[in-house]
């Protein structure tokens, strides 16, 4: 009897712990390209220190990144980005809180590749806007590789580009997300 109770408790415990599983990374890569067609040089930067958490049972997905973590090749461009465009001293972080649509169709326990839409609220420069992106989730060897590409209108986030450089910086920035998530051990 005792043994049955013990086994039952263990079984319930295991079942619930699988349901509450979260995968994460603290080295997520976010790349953006805001080069306008008439610009002689590339306006692009990469942030390699974004955090991401995915709750595989609910499909909830969250991102957070420090704006100062965006690295540009040119120091001057990086300074302008931080001081004038995204004002990172006022708004140090960018966040995304959303959900993976049709998350139940993804089998996280087996190796496989899935395409799923991700929808949620993106907050940059203190402004929040709903965005939707097509995501690709690759389950392999107990890790999840999450990738997505989407565009954002800079004016939506009150990021104003001065007239002097308006022809170099595109009105829409293309964002590429690439993260390798592993199980968060509690």
């Amino acid at each position: 009897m005792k043994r049955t109770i013990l086994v039952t408790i263990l079984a319930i415990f295991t079942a619930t712990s699988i349901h509450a599983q979260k995968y994460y990374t603290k080295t997520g890569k976010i790349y953006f390209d805001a080069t306008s067609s008439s610009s002689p040089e590339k306006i692009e930067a990469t942030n390699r220190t974004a955090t991401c958490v995915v709750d595989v049972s609910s499909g909830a997905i969250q991102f957070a990144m420090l704006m100062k973590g965006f690295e540009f090749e040119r120091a001057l461009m990086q300074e302008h980005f931080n001081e004038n465009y995204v004002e990172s001293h006022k708004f140090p972080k960018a966040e995304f809180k959303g959900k993976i649509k049709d998350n139940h169709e993804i089998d996280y326990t087996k190796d496989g590749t899935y395409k799923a839409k991700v929808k949620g609220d993106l907050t940059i420069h203190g402004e929040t806007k709903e965005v939707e992106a097509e995501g690709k989730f690759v389950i392999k060897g107990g890790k999840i590789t999450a990738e997505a590409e989407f565009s954002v209108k800079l004016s939506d986030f009150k990021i104003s580009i001065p007239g002097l450089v308006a022809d170099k910086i595109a009105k829409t920035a293309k964002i590429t997300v690439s993260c390798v998530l592993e199980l968060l051990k509690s």
Partner: protein
Amino acid sequence: MKRKKIIRYIVLPLLVIGAVAAIYIYKEYNRKHKDTARVKADYSLTTTELLNEFAANEKASGEKYMDKVLRVEGAVKDIIKDEKGFYTIALGDTASMSSVRCSIDSTHTNEVISLKKGAILAVKGICTGYTADELLGADVVLVRSVVDSKK
């Protein structure tokens, strides 16, 4: 006579100023980030001291350390290498969820390739802020980091 004077005293200086300005603008425009190994640290402290400061007062610590070159000393908690070969080292106390995350400068990868967990290390990097998350712990993030062997 007057024409020569104009050339010598007005046109020539203007040309010189113009040339100096052009060189300055060109250099400033193309300025790349300084190699962190060559920059002197603004602050030198242990990971415990840094994390405690941020935990006590995030706003004041942010104002103090943002964009500054920090030299942090601590134990290697984790070494992460991504698909492109970029390294990130987490320094700190293994008993704590928080750490100082150092994104290693891509030209200094060789300094971290043979690192082992538990090694005591000093890393110099630029502070980009603090990410406090109840699930993931509170981390101070440094970029363009290099291993600092000097004491």
